């Protein structure tokens, strides 16, 4: 073994850009929660985000249902990735997704009739949530099972988190409650418009404004530091 050239231990195999297998790291999971948050960063899946977030419990239910579909369809797409012909892949993904959504639809119907009634058609509309198709196309169709599951879980939880941050704000402002518990005294006048459709647009807009402001402030600070360093 002494005559072999010294190996560089940290150098990975040359990456093939078309068939890159991602190694499983914490980042695989965490990316979906913050850095590539499907709602706040990528602006995907807007319809359920706005429509079912008039209370925190609806937001959680919707988020978990979406996470389940994301995991199930991701796993199946990842397992079948060598067998699905490229020309019909989108149609195949949609059928796989629709299957899992039907499962979720019947499951929620059986578990909680109340939640089923308040989410309404939006459970079935998970089929056309762009996050799920986007993950299937961009991630699951290229990666092995385990990273797909971990990444899907991260994305799903990121989605749930975003829904919850909208849902809780709208419920507190519009109804004075959080998860059904009253937060304020008798004198509280609910800001009713927040639980109605316009509130969804306003609250999401406000969150995006906040994030844009934070980002701008951070960038300015980095710029200032760079300026200080350059001037010595």
């Amino acid at each position: 073994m002494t005559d072999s050239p010294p190996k560089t231990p940290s150098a990975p195999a040359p990456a093939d850009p078309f068939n890159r297998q991602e190694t499983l790291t914490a980042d695989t999971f965490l990316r979906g929660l913050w850095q590539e948050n499907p709602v706040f960063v990528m602006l995907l899946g807007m319809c359920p985000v706005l429509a079912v977030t008039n209370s925190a419990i609806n937001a959680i239910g919707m988020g978990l249902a979406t996470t389940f579909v994301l995991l199930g369809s991701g796993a199946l797409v990842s397992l079948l990735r060598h067998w699905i012909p490229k020309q019909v892949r989108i149609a195949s993904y949609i059928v796989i997704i629709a299957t899992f959504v039907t499962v979720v639809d019947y499951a929620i119907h059986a578990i909680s009739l109340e939640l089923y009634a308040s989410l309404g058609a939006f459970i079935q509309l998970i089929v056309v949530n762009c996050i799920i198709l986007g993950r299937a196309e961009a991630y699951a169709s290229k990666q092995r099972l385990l990273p797909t599951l971990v990444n899907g879980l991260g994305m799903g939880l990121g989605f749930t988190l975003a829904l919850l941050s909208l849902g809780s704000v709208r419920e507190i402002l519009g109804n004075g409650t959080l998860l059904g518990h009253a937060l304020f005294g008798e004198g509280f006048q609910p800001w009713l418009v927040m639980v109605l459709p316009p509130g969804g647009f306003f609250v999401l807009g406000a969150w995006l404004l906040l994030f844009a402001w934070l980002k701008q402030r951070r960038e300015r600070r980095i710029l200032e530091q760079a300026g200080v360093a350059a001037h010595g």
Partner: protein
Amino acid sequence: MANESLPLIFLNAAVVNNFVLALFLGICPFLGTSAKKETAWNMGLATTFVMVVSSVSAYGINWLLVELQLEFLRLICYIAIIASAVQLVEMFVKKYSPALFRSLGIFLPLITTNCAILGLALFQTAKEYDFIQSLVYSLGAGAGFILALMLMAGLRERLELARVPTVSQGAAMSLMLAGLLSLAFMGFAGLGASHG
């Protein structure tokens, strides 16, 4: 079977329960293609066409599925129908208007995942509309979609010329605008018959 009158169905779908501003369906194309009035108009027309085609086919398929007692396949069948209808529109547009094809870009195939269309098919099934009612409902929904897109595009074209703080440019501003529009549409709520 629902016995709502046809004008009421149309008005309900187009204005009172506007698909975009009151039911939050089809937000992605609403935010994505409403920067210019011309694009918005074409997108609205394409979507309306797909709505009508898929609504009529969904009616037929639903009848068949109920006959065969296969209702659990409804969702899969609907989405397959919509995907085919979109494919049809895409081929048509590509052949007859390549310029339009380019300006709509990725949003044309994405009509498949426009929840307004699947939502329409699901709502008409839930409300048990008959054939003519479904047709009117889909036309109303299409008209409402065009209306919302055009209003938004008009506002955004004006805003191009306005000086807004850099923080609020982009998506946040569009959402605030949509909120104001939605607030205005709430004024129609008294006209409506019921939800959905």
